[in-house]
Every structure is written in C-alpha cells, then in structure tokens.
C-alpha cells in the first residue's frame, strides 16, 4: 500500500545522511544544518532494531475504572458500604466506603483473567493482549495527569510522546503527516487543548496533525485545503508544472539552496497528498463487512481511520474516543457503560482487523487513560449519595497488544482492593520508556536540547518493562 518512491525521496534521504556526517554527496548536498532544518521529517534510523513500527493509542480520556473492567476485586463485596480496613499508607484520598463493581465479571483465556462485561469482546481475546494491572502516576487531577501521560512531565512546553517519536524516527510516508491525533471535537479541543499532540519546545513540524473527526464523511473537513475547488486534473498539473519551472529557474540562478529545494519538494508532496489524503481519510472505501466489524460508533470509526493511516505509513495515531471526559464517572457508573462498550467493540475489531492484515506484528496498540479510579464510592453531594468513583493515581490498567508485546500476560498486581499498585509497579515513565523501546529508541538517548539542557520524554525516570516484552 505504500506509495511508489518518488525521486525526491532518495534526495531527502541523502540530505538526512549528509546531516549525519557523511560527506561526498556533491556540492549541492553540502548544505549542512540548513538542509536538515528544511527536511526535519527525513526518516532517521532507530537506535536498535525495532519490534514495532507504528503506534495506535486509544486514550481513555477521564481515567477508566480498573476495578470495573480488568481488575476484579471480590474483597469489595465483602466490605461493601463499609470503610476499607486500614492497610497501607494513610492518605487523604483514602476515604469513602467500598463499592463493589455493579458489572458482571467472567473468567477468560488461558490466564484466567476476570474481565467485566463492559469489555466482553476484548475478554474473549485476552490471550492476544497484555494487561498491566500495576500502572501508577504522580498526579491526581486530570490536567496534570494527562500531561504526564502524554508529555512525561508537567513542565511548561514539554513535547508530547508522538512528537518525540516523530523527532526520533521521522516519517515513512511523504504524502501524509507522520503523527496524527484524531478527536471528534466538532470544533472543540479536548479539555487540555492540544497538550496531547503538541510539539512543545520542539519545532512545530513535530506537532501532531489534529484531525477533527466530528464530521467524518467529508474528507475536506478532515484535512484542510486538501482539494482545489477550481482546478482539477490536467489543468492543476499544468499550473504546478509552471510553478515548478519558475522555481527551478529561480534556483538555478542562485547556485543551489536547500531551503529553496525543500520548498520545491514540499509542493510536490502537497500535490501528491491531495490524492493520498483524499484516499487515506475516505472511510467510504472500506467494504461493508469491515464497517460492520467495527460498528458505527465514534471510537470505532476513528480506529478504522487509524488503521487506514498506519497502513499508509503514518507513525503515530492518537485516538480520543470522545472529546470530553467520557471516563470521568464521579456521579454514577451508568455513564461508564456505553462508552466502555463502544471502546471494547472498537478495539476488538481493530485487533482482529490488524491481525487479519498481518499488521499487528508491527503495530503497537495501547489503550489506557490518565489514571484509574477508587475502589470506594464518591461521598454525598447535595444530599445525594453518589455511586461513581473518584480519581486514583495510585493504580490503573493499561492494555497493550501487537508489535513486541508478550500476549496473554497479566503483568503486576494491585493490592487487595485495587487501591494501590502492589506488585511490579509500572510508572507512566516506565511505560513511555517501553513504548520507545519497542520502536527501537532508547529513552535515555532520545534527547532534545532546550533552554540549556537536554530533555527527554521520560524526564529523569523510566525503566523498560521487560516482563511484557515478547
């Protein structure tokens, strides 16, 4: 499915290599930094052989309750309505009474993991994924926790993980952006704006391209300016040819200039992108049975689009199932049910689809939110007892599958109540380090210099979680 290589491709690679210190590429190539600046997306080899080439990240915005999904806690039934017995550290947030999950759990797969009915589809595939039950993070509030998840730090302007990956590896497809964020905002961004896909202090080119999936039937609403409303076919090509000729004359009169050349190429890329994006973002090309497999929900349609994108070499696709915080269920858990079921069906379909196409081996699929939720019920508000759960940064789950991930593994464990990660705790920096590792990047070597120091995604922490690697 990858587009045939274009003459500019080899040129770009040459420029990239030139920047890496290899000489002898002719006078026109001796352009140094300028050339790299003009071609910052040139593919760069990883630090070591990668296990995965691409990432699809379904971000469960708001913080999925682990005790209602993949972390079954029978002890909550025993203490239902009562305070949890005083084990573990005494923290301010350890309040309220135990609330057992209202959802039915069932044992699945060869590892016998209990999975709730909310994720019954994924439950049936539990042998194909890895469940990390001991995730933990540093911040109890959405904004900071999400920024930690996406950017590894709450520092102002820290770049997002997708930006780090794009900076580290460049792009595989000249015709499409390397890093795409999908969010059905219909003009609205998620709660923290563009934090999740920002370039931060890196050049804006590494920023994710936000595609507002509020209206998915129209490619032109998905990708701006992708079509010329006036010129089509031969007429448009003729116009571009004239531009090319004038630009070449201009270039020739100036004895070569990487910036000029870069811009000439960018027109060619854009011209090709008109076709490529129109194709990549056009879901109507998918046959009926595929649509049927995924379903019509927003998470499903977006994951289908994500699959089309990674198929075409997009490196990193971030998917927000809904633009607000659908998994922030303080009031009651009935609001959790529909969105969880949508995501369950969608991600199960994605895994099946990727497997069928032989893409799963080289695609890392991650499903996770910014934190988990408390095993206790929320207290009263306005005289009404609430049956939702509060934020829990001490423990949550991540589901991983695909490239380089050991399937069928349940890694780590929480305490008796799911309050705190107890066994093999995995900090978000550990997971970030692991994701980079699977892509062939050493998180301690992937650094970017800013304001006088080298920064990295994992700040000063992070250990690759060896136990989940295949």
């Amino acid at each position, binding site marked *: 499915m990858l587009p045939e290589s274009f003459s500019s491709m080899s040129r770009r690679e040459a420029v990239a290599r030139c920047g890496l210190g290899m000489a002898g590429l002719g006078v026109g190539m*001796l352009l140094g*930094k300028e050339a790299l600046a003009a071609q910052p997306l040139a593919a760069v080899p990883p630090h070591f052989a990668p296990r995965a080439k691409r990432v699809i990240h379904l971000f469960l915005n708001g913080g999925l309750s682990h005790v209602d999904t993949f972390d079954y806690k029978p002890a909550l039934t025993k203490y239902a309505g009562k305070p949890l017995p005083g084990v573990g550290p005494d923290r301010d947030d350890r309040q309220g009474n135990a609330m057992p999950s209202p959802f039915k759990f069932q044992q699945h797969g060869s590892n016998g993991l209990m999975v709730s009915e909310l994720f019954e589809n994924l439950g049936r595939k539990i042998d194909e994924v890895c469940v990390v039950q001991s995730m933990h993070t540093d911040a109890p509030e959405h904004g900071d926790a999400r920024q930690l998840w996406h950017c590894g730090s709450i520092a102002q302007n820290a770049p997002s993980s997708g930006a780090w990956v794009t900076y580290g590896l460049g792009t595989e497809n000249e015709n499409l952006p390397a890093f795409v964020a999908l969010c059905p905002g219909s003009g609205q961004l998620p709660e923290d704006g563009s934090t999740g896909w920002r370039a931060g202090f890196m050049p804006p080119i590494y920023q994710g391209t936000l595609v507002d999936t509020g209206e998915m039937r129209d490619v032109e609403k998905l990708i701006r300016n*992708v079509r010329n409303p006036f010129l089509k076919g031969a007429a448009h090509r003729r*116009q571009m040819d004239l531009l090319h000729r004038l630009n070449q004359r*201009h270039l020739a009169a100036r004895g070569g200039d990487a910036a*000029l050349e870069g*811009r000439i190429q960018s027109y060619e*890329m854009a011209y090709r992108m008109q076709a490529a994006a129109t194709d990549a973002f056009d879901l109507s090309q998918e046959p009926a049975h595929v649509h049927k497999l995924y379903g019509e929900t927003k998470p499903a349609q977006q994951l289908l689009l994500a699959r089309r994108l990674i198929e075409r070499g997009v490196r990193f696709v971030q998917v927000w199932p809904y633009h607000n915080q659908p998994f922030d269920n303080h009031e009651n858990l009935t609001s959790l049910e529909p969105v969880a079921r949508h995501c369950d069906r969608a991600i199960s379909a994605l895994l099946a689809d990727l497997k069928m196409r032989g893409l799963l081996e080289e695609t890392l699929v991650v499903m996770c939110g910014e934190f988990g939720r408390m095993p206790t019920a929320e207290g009263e508000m306005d005289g009404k007892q609430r049956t939702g759960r509060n934020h829990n940064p001490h423990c949550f789950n991540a589901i991983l599958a695909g490239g380089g991930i050991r399937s069928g593994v349940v890694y780590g464990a929480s305490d008796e109540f799911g309050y705190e990660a107890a066994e093999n705790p995995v900090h978000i920096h550990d997971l970030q380090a692991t994701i980079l590792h699977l892509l062939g990047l050493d998180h301690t070597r992937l650094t970017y210099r800013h304001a*006088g120091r080298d920064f990295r995604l994992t700040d000063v922490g992070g250990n690759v979680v060896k136990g989940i690697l295949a």
Partner: protein
Amino acid sequence: MCISFSLHVLALSWALFLCAVTTTVADDRAKLDYFENNIRPLLVEKCASCHGEDAQENGLRVDSREALLLGGQRGEAVIPGDAEASLLYRVVSGEEEDLVMPPEGDMLSEEEQTHLAHWINDGVTWSGKQQANADTPLAQMETIQANHWAYRPIELPDVPTHKDWDWPREAIDQFVLRGLLEKGLTPSAEADRRTLIRRAYFDLIGLPPSYEAVEAFVADHRKNAYERLIERLLERPEYGQRWGRHWLDVARYSDTRGHTNVPGTEIRYPYAWTYRDYVIDALNQDLPYDQFITEQLAADLFGANDKEKLAALGFLTVGRRFLDRQHRILGERVDLVSRGLMGITIMCAKCHDHKFDPLSMRDFYALYGIFENAAEPLAIDLPEMGVQSQSDPEKKQRFESLLNEELNPLRHELVALRRKLIVEELQQKAEYYLALVAAAEMGTEFGKVDLGDNDRLSLRGIEIWQQLLQQDTTLARFWETLLAIEEEEGEAYAHEVTRVLAEDEGGNRLLHEKLVSEKPQSASAALRVIGRVLGSVYERWEKLQKLDPGDQGFADPAAEEIRQLLLLLAEAGKAQSVEEQGQWFLGREPESLLKKSHEIESVLVKYRELVPRRAMAVVENPLVRDTAIHIRGNPKKLGPVVPRGFYELFSEDCEVTAVKEGSGRAELARWITHAGNPLTARVIANRIWGWHFGQHLVETPSDFGTRSAAPTHPQLLDYLAATLRDGGWSLKDLHRQIMHSATYRQQSLARQEAMAIDPDNQCYWRKNRRRLEFEPMRDAMLAVTGELDTALAGPPVDDIDSPRRSIYLLHDRRSMAPVLPTFDVPAANATLPKRSETTVPQQALYLMNNGFVTRRAAQLSRHTSSVHSDAQTDKRITALYRRIYGRDPSADELKDAEAFIAEAASAFLSRPQSAREIPPEDACWSYGTGRFDTDQQTVHDFQPLPYFDGRRWWQRASHSWQDAYLSADGGRPGHQTAVIRRWQAPPGAVGARYLLRGNFKGGPHFGDGVDIHVVSSRQGLLKTFPRDTAESMDIHLENLEIEPGDSLDLVVTPRGENTFDDFSWSLRIVEVGINAAGTPFAAAQWRSEDAFQRSVPFWEGGMDPWEQLAQVLLISNTFMFVD
C-alpha cells in the same frame, strides 16, 4: 487618642519585618562557633555518607542550610526554631515512629541530640562561606562571572583594521572581515540595487517595494541613495508594525487568556491590543530601549502623565493564565523578564538552584516577589486612555446607547456586589482588622500579627477601622482603656483588664464578659477578643436577618450596641468611591465578583470597536509583602522568606540595593537597564542582529547561560551592545549600523569555495537568503493586489481573510486559526527565542488551494485585465510581474508564461465563461433583501444583493458591519431590512412532495435576536421561528406544496438592531419520491452551499488562465524568498 501614621510607613514596616533579621554580631559569632564545634562534625560523621555530596538518599542532603530547609521526599528536614517538629531531630531522637536515623550503628548520644535540638531551636545557623559542596555554580559564582563571556562587563572593543581592504564600510565589517580572513574566506560582492531595495523593504517594513519605487531607486544616482532609502523606510509607520511583530514574539502577545475550565470566563482580553499598539508606536518613535523596557515593567511608577504609556504594562499581563493558578502566572512573568530581556534561564530555580548557572531559588523568588506585589485590577478599574478615534458619528451615537443599555447595568451590579463584599469583609474579619490596627498603634510590625489565611487584607480596610475608632463609641472607649493599661504582658495584664473593667460601669456587657472570661494576657490579645465578639454578633445578626428580614435589631442592648457599631462600619465601607473600591480585592476577588467582571468583559469584547481604550496595566499592591521560597516549587510548602530583589550574580554590576517600598518594579527596571548589566544590551543587540540576518551571533537568543554556545563573533556582539548602550539605546541607530554595513549589503548567492569551508555561513561570507514569515507573506499578497489595510491601531480583527495587516489579526492562543501554526506562528504560551522555520506540505496545500490565495490571484487578474486586453499577452504578463515582483519578467520567464497562457487558454476557452450554462438546479437560487409584512404575511420589495466579494453577496460595495449579506451557508440581515434566500421551483416539479431541512445557528456574539420566516408564494407564511439566542435550532418543514414557478422565501428579519445578527443556516430542499416498495427517498435535493458556489461568477467551475498564472507568481519561491 491618636493613631497617626502614614500608609506609606505602614506598608514599609510590613515589608521590613519580613526581610530584617536583627541579631548582634557577637551573637552571630557564638552561634557559628556552636555550629562548627557541635553540629557540623556530627552531620559529617553520622549523616553525610548517605545524605551528602555523593549520595542523596530519599532526595535529602545535609550539607547546607538550604538543603536541610528543602528536605527530601518526606518534606523539610528542619524547621528553624522548632526542634520538636523538625524531622531531623525526630528521627535521631526516636520520636518518628517509622523512621530512625542513623539506620545502622549507634544512635546519637543524648548530648548530641541536645546539641542538635538547641541548634535547631536557635535558628539553624550555618557558616555559609564554607559550604560543604564547593562545586556548585553558586559556590563558584565569582569565578564563573569572571570567565563566562556573557557575564563579563560590556566594554567597547578595539575595532580591527585591514589596510589592504576597502570593503569595510562600518566597524561591523572589520570584525566580520577578520573572521572571514582567519578562515580563508572572502566577502561576497555587493548586491544589485533591485535586490537591495527588496531586502530593505521586507526587512524594515515587511512589505514589498512597488515597481515604481524600485525603478526610482535604481535610477537614483546620488552617492547616498541607499542610506536615504533606509532613512525613508525607518520613518514609515509600517516599520513599527513589522518590528513590533518581532517584539510581540518575545512578549508572547496574544488576545486571549488560554485554556480555561471556568464556565462564563471571557476568553478574550478586552484590551490586550492597546499593548500591541503601544509597542508599534514606541518603535516608530524610536523610544530608547532602556526606556522601552522601563515602561513595560513600571510605566505607572514613573509618573506616567501620558496615559498612553500605561498600555506598556500589558507586557506583563498579556500572558497565559494557566487556569488562573497564580504561582504559574507569576512564575511565567519571571521567565518572561529573565529569558526575554536578559537571556537567563531561571525556571529551573523555581524548584531547585540552577544546575549550571550561578542562579538560586532565592533569585527566582526575589523576582517572583516583585511581580506578586503588582496586582491586576478588574477590567472596569483599568486606567482609561481615551476613546477610540471614531470618524463615524453614527457609531459614536450607537456607542452611547449601548453603554446605557448593556454596560451600565452590569457596572452598577458589579459596584453594588463589590460594595456588599467589602462590607462583609470589614464586619466578618473584624478580629483581624482590629489586630492590624492594634499592631499599628503599638508599633508592632504587621508581619508579627497572626492573620491565619487572611494575610492579604485591605489597607483601605485598616483605614476605615481606624476612622471608626476615632468616633465616640463604646468600642473607642474600650480601645482607649485597654491601651492605657500599663502592665505589659502576662497574667498581670489579665488582672488589670478585669480590674479596669469592673470600674467601667457604662461599658458593654458582651465585651466585658468575654474579656473577663478569656483573660487576655496582652493588649493585642485583648483586642482580638473584642474582634471576635464583633464577629460573633455579626453572625448572629446575619442569622436573624435570614429568619426575619424585617427585624429591626437586637433586644439585648449590648448586642444592639455592637450591631450599631457594625452598621457604622458598613456605612464607611459603602461610602467608598469606585476608585477606592478598586483597591480592595486586587488578585483575591471572590468568585462571584470575578464572574460579574467576566460578564462585563464579554460586553467590552463584543463592542470592542467602540468602547474607550484602557491600558491592561498592573497597580502596586497596597499591602506589600515578600515571598517565601516555594519548596520544590510547591506553593503550599513554604520555606524562608526572600526579600524582593534581583539576581545575586549581578548585584554589584547593577548596584542592587534593597527595595524600600512598593513592589520593586521600578528598581527592577533600573537594574535591567543599568549600564553595568552585562546581559540586557547583549541580548537585544543579538536579537536585532538575528532579525536582520536570520541567524544570530549567539545561537540561543534567550539563553546566555554557561551552557549556551559562545557567540560566533564575541567582539562584534560587544561592540554592538556597547554602542547601543552608550549611544542612547536607539534601536534605529542599530538598524542603521547593521544595514549600512558591507556585510549586510552582500549578495546571497552560493559560492562553492566558501560553501565548502563554511556551509552554515557562520562567518557571514554572504547575506542569508530569507524566507518570508507568515505575516509578511500574507501582507505582501494583500499589498500587491492593492487591498492591504495598514491603518495603525485598533482592536484585533478575527477574520483571518480580512485585508487588515497581519499584526492586527486576532491571536487566540487557545485555538489559533489553522493556517497560523502551519506557518510557524507561535502559540505565544511563553516568550519565544526565535521562530522555527519549517517547510511542510500543509503550507503548500494552503497556498495551492485556499480561497485566500486564489482570491488574491483573481484580484490580480482583474487589475491587469482592465489595463490590457487578452490579446496583449506580453503586456499583461509584464503588468503581473511588475505588480507582484516589482520588476519586468526576464525573456525566459515571459516565454514560460506566454506558453502557459496559450496552453491553458485553449483548454479553458473550449468552455468559455459566457457560454457556460448554469445547471438548472442552480438557477433556482437567488439572494436578496426585502421586507416581511407582518400583517399580510407576505414578502415585499425583493431586491437582489448586487455586490460580490468572492465569498459573500453584499447590499453595498463598501460593505460595512450594518449591511446585509448572504454567504454559501449563512448571512446577516440589514439594518432595517430582511435578508432573503429565494428558491424558485424548477419547471417540471409537478405534484411532488417537498421537505425543508436545515440548521440555524447564531454567530459568536449574537445580538438581540432575529425572526425567521418561511414564506411560500402559494401558501403564504408557512412558519415563523423566533430566535433569541445563538443556540442551534433545526428548521424543518414537511409536506410543502410546490408547483412549477412557485418560490419559497427563507427570510431572516432583524429586530431592534442587526449588528451582531450574523448566522449560519445550512439548508436544503428535498423532493420526496416514493419507490416501488412504498419507501420515501430523496428524489432530488437543492443544497444552499452547492448552488451558491456554482452560481456566482467567481466560482464558476474554475480559475481562468490569468488567475492561474497570478497564483503561480504569488506562491513561487521568487515571491517567498528575499535574496
């Protein structure tokens, strides 16, 4: 009694207390000895192996006082003055349950424990000069200062000379030439006149020269023609617009607050733009740079008689709001001033001392304290700068009426609400206000008064309380009695109180009882008791009022007496003028007040073109206080208090002295602009150089720290900095120096031999070719079509396609127009060192396909078509070249263009415009204005909208904000007329069923509402949909009876006024068919958008060959790059 002291002294004593530590020299010596003899050896022997230089278990180290105060993961290790609460003492004495130190070996002896306790209780004295770790940058401050290029004093270096070279024109060239020759390079020849004028125009004013200007310059044979050109450009008002944009990147200018999660928050700043206008004006005036900085930090403190100057303070306030987290906002200001003005990366020191530069947390919080004492008034309290120039009397009149109608009621509500809140505070917090009054009376520093969480009371409040105590009341009598007691403190005092009260027969029972029962042991304690009694009476009265609002007072005379007192207080509180009110809550406004203020801001934003201008200024906090270090940057964990001040590193260079009064912004400005400051002049000289050359002498313009790369030309940098500083800080002089230089005038052609030695042009062997940034690119496109509006000043324009110069476009840091980030326009969340310059296909897509560009091409085509007929192809091509590039085409270019026109035209003419048929379904739509007669329920006076601007059909050619228009999917009614989208049923539509489907939505500042009528020529009025709000509403009608020749009018009528009645209404009319299975389906449909696009001349199926050519010229590298 006499309570006379100036507020000034009062504020001062508050501040002084916090920074002064009064101990005698002998004391100090003894404490140091104690530390050296008893404590340091103990820490080194018992603790340092795990908590010292080599290892810091749990993040703790014990080898400096700061480190102990900072502590480790369990928080601070010592609390000076309180050994019992200090972790260090608790873990060695066994008082901490789960942690005993040292972990192995012997516990500390009892004697050692006692030493430790004594040392902590005595204030944790440390002998600072001999820090355990001498490797820290702070410890090596003097060495670093002496050795780092950026920290050394700026001295004018000797200018080198090169006898064999006549190339140099300016001192700059001598420095550059020396560098070139050292590398075996030579400079390039001077660029030709055409290149020079284009370069100078874009560089100084950000616009292209006209063909005539180029020709005149080429023909100008005077020797100083080039210098005269530079002078002319420096005088142009567009200079300020171009260079103002550069500065706004440093100042992280935006028109919005950034992301918010509080509903009702007005996202836009009503007055940020007055700062932008100040910057443009200051640069045009060539305001000396030191003054420019001073005004931006402290215009209000230098007796700014000129109100315009106050707008300069927007520098501090137009930043991001971080969900209103104060510590983030203030921290960002420290960053702005440090990196933006001085190239200091201080943000690390928010949480810990800088790892590489000699900068400490104390430095950070010394600056932070300055900004913490500069408060931001609410919008209505901001200083007014006069009305906007309004040539239109109609607008002015409307302004007055809208003020009455919308703004005044809200202002009154806000004033009333604030008055209520002030009175509440005066009454509720009587205890604390009395404590402060007492402290003032007894000469106690305010800082010694424990105010709990109420440490930001109003200075005005203290005054009011003082005045009350001067009136003849029971309270005042008490007050005098208590102050007259001679006993100082302790039980004797309490006895004396009881004794005195026994004699005071006419006194207040409640106060008596409480004072006797509580036995206060000092005058201030007694006053607090009184305050609490007042507070409790206030609460009782509040409750009573709730139960029975008609209640006239307490039956108990004692309580009633106090209630009367509180009423006096309330009167005094209410009597505040609006200006005095403005001094009250500064930065600690209750939510209800902020909410009201945001309502006002929304109105101000809505009428931004009309409301009087105000400066987005800060004011001095009446109660000045210093800031405590936030341990690990956590504002809830406070360490030692730091006096407001400056970087210790530059305290000698800049003659830093203690801030005596006020926030210290005036002093800050003085330190930053001090002739001895080694950074300020270097930083701005480097920035200006970079904006001229696209490459800086110091690669990291906002980081001049020890880890930054040294300047490529250190002496040149110092030369520029020194001449700037010593020559009156004129930026225009700096431009002259740079632009007059031979270095600047070089050609930009690549020379292979030079390329091989210095590919990045570090030595300036040529002038760098520059790509236009977004703003000059966009402005140049509008300039060559003659559309550009360069008027100075005014509120931001939120239409990205407006012909207004780009610096006046609305910048929304929360959600930027998509084209802006595509072209590297910063989100302005922090001060920007330099713009990125990326080349991405999305930029090309915009230029190839976006309507903004194609409309410019169409304009160009039209301009040239009126001059030359199609037959004179060469002349018309030349005309295009002259307009777009300011020159004639070369022979090759002419040939290319002619060939293109010929080929494209033959393709195009096969489908000539005039002969192009409008598809019948598109002929159905027409667009007009008219009148809806409510009595007859019919439409009258349908008049087609005659003017089209490429996107909208307008009532008048000079479309103003009161004119009706219709676009593809929306529109706006006229001042008194309805706007009508008319659908004519096609021939042959017989006996079919029709539906109307659509969604109506008001614009962002929807006005007073509209009425929507759907009127059929056959059935009359079908339905009216009144709209009071902007919310979207479906407009659906079923079973329309339509015969051939019938028409359906979709009418939107204004109500009182139409100004903000913009709406979007995307709609379609559907013909319903019934299939064989009896299921309805859409047999045909007419969408408002499709038809619109195809039925206007511009959008007719394509661009003509001339438009295509014009577009190519507009988006080519020739246009986009400046040699």
